[in-house]
């Protein structure tokens, strides 16, 4: 069993009461947990609440994290529990939801909104890229986003990240290698899930 040393050390530092580490932990993972949540329940305000509950639950249970999975994967597991609890509450308080979806008129409207295969594939790739970025160190994912999504030049990134251009180029090379590694890992995992050879992660 491989241990995620960097994640384990951050967790240990928080558990030992290091304030800086707690801030890094929150700043790094709150937005990621929020994104994990929002693509599942499509409710931004509720996702912010659920992400917060997840982070508080993580704080209480961080001493049990053993580094056997990535810290983000561990947080996703906690977040799934919070999402289930939220959905359960929603079901109790919003019976109308099911009735409305059953109407023929609404069903047709929903079907008209169905995306084409190309759009679906693009949507899935968008989600996969976001998932891979969320598995990378914050600095690397931020740099890749600036370069390839926002189209910033190396000099603009250097300015934004308060470092030199050669440093940015060096870090970009590392970030690309990291991206490739996680992309391959997650793609293989998703393919295995689709083929039913492993359980859903």
């Amino acid at each position, binding site marked *: 069993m491989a241990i995620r040393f960097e994640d384990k050390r951050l967790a240990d530092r928080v558990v030992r009461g290091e304030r800086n580490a707690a801030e890094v932990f*929150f700043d790094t993972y*709150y937005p990621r947990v929020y994104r994990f949540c*929002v693509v599942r329940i499509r409710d*931004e305000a509720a996702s912010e609440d659920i992400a917060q509950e997840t*982070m508080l639950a993580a704080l209480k249970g961080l001493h049990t994290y053993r580094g056997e999975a990535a810290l983000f994967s561990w947080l996703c597991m906690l977040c799934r529990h919070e999402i289930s609890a939220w959905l359960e509450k929603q079901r109790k308080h919003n019976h109308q939801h099911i009735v409305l979806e059953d109407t023929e008129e609404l069903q047709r409207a929903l079907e008209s909104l169905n995306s084409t295969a190309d759009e679906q594939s693009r949507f899935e790739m968008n989600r996969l*890229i976001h998932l891979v970025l969320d598995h990378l160190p914050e600095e690397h994912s931020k740099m890749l986003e600036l370069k*390839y*999504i926002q189209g910033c030049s190396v000099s603009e990134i250097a300015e934004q990240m308060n470092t030199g251009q050669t440093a940015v180029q*060096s870090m970009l090379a590392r970030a690309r290698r990291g991206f490739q590694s996680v992309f391959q890992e997650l793609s293989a995992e998703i393919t295995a899930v689709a083929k039913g050879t492993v359980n859903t992660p």
Partner: protein
Amino acid sequence: MKDFDDDNVMQELFDQAEPRMQPSSERMKAAKADFMKAFEDQQPAPAKKSLLRNSGLAAAVLLSVLASWFTLQSDDAGQELATALVTIESMAGEVTLNGDRLEPTASGQAIEYGSDIDTGNGGFVRIQLANNASLRIDSNSRVTLHDQQLDLHTGRVYFDAPGTNDYITVRAGDISVRDIGTQFEVRRSSDSVTVGVREGEVMVSGADRTVSAKAEPERAPIVEIRNGVVEEQRHVSPRDAHWNWIHKAPVELELETVHSFAELAARETGLSLVYASDAVRQASQSTRLSGKIRVDDTLEQRIQEILLAASFQRIDSNQHTLRIDFIR
């Protein structure tokens, strides 16, 4: 499999992506405030608990707390609270920690930030830092270790910080050296500071300007600075005997996968790691190894033996590369 090291391939892929969604900054600020409050509330107050549990000790504990409080108030306001976060991996010869001589069996001992470490003649210590980074301190050195910063008073230190998020800064008098995820050494003598970059890049800052020292393939820069001015820059190979001192005290590390072993071996020996194909790389990442590897100056000679045991092999086209393939 596509090569994401190619800028165009990455751009083509990312053209299908939008910026990641972010929580609102106001909401995030509020959530962080709640989180940090919960964090503070969670911190134990051992002195208070002792008082409640055992009234007989109350007076002694109270005196102790007051004494600690008084000491903190009288100290420099910037002084950090000592927290054990790093450990000694191996050592040799005479090493003292906060003035106390360490026994050769000190491996695994925790070191608190703010500690002073001295090495005498023939002394050497290897320390495991956060984020998988490693610090080696050479003979006749004196340092003070802080979180992500080291004050080098005299002597020589070496950092290996592979792909970490946390930067390390070495302060040597007026000169500061900041790593950018790399392997580098800093030596301070009475009249100069020398910085050697074995891999990656560091930023060297003097009183009025910052310069970059960057390693190129087979060219590790050694920069000598006197009175804040770069006086000399030469180059050595990352495999030059210049770096041999970092192995003065061997350490035994747990093996994980063929890939992690190859990365470790490459970093320790100054070799460039290359895989014969993506398939070999992927297989190396999923092939587990068990046991320990002794990291010393004979490591390179044992690379092939370990790879062969896992059905891989080293197929070098030149002596500077660790090129790995399957056994064909």
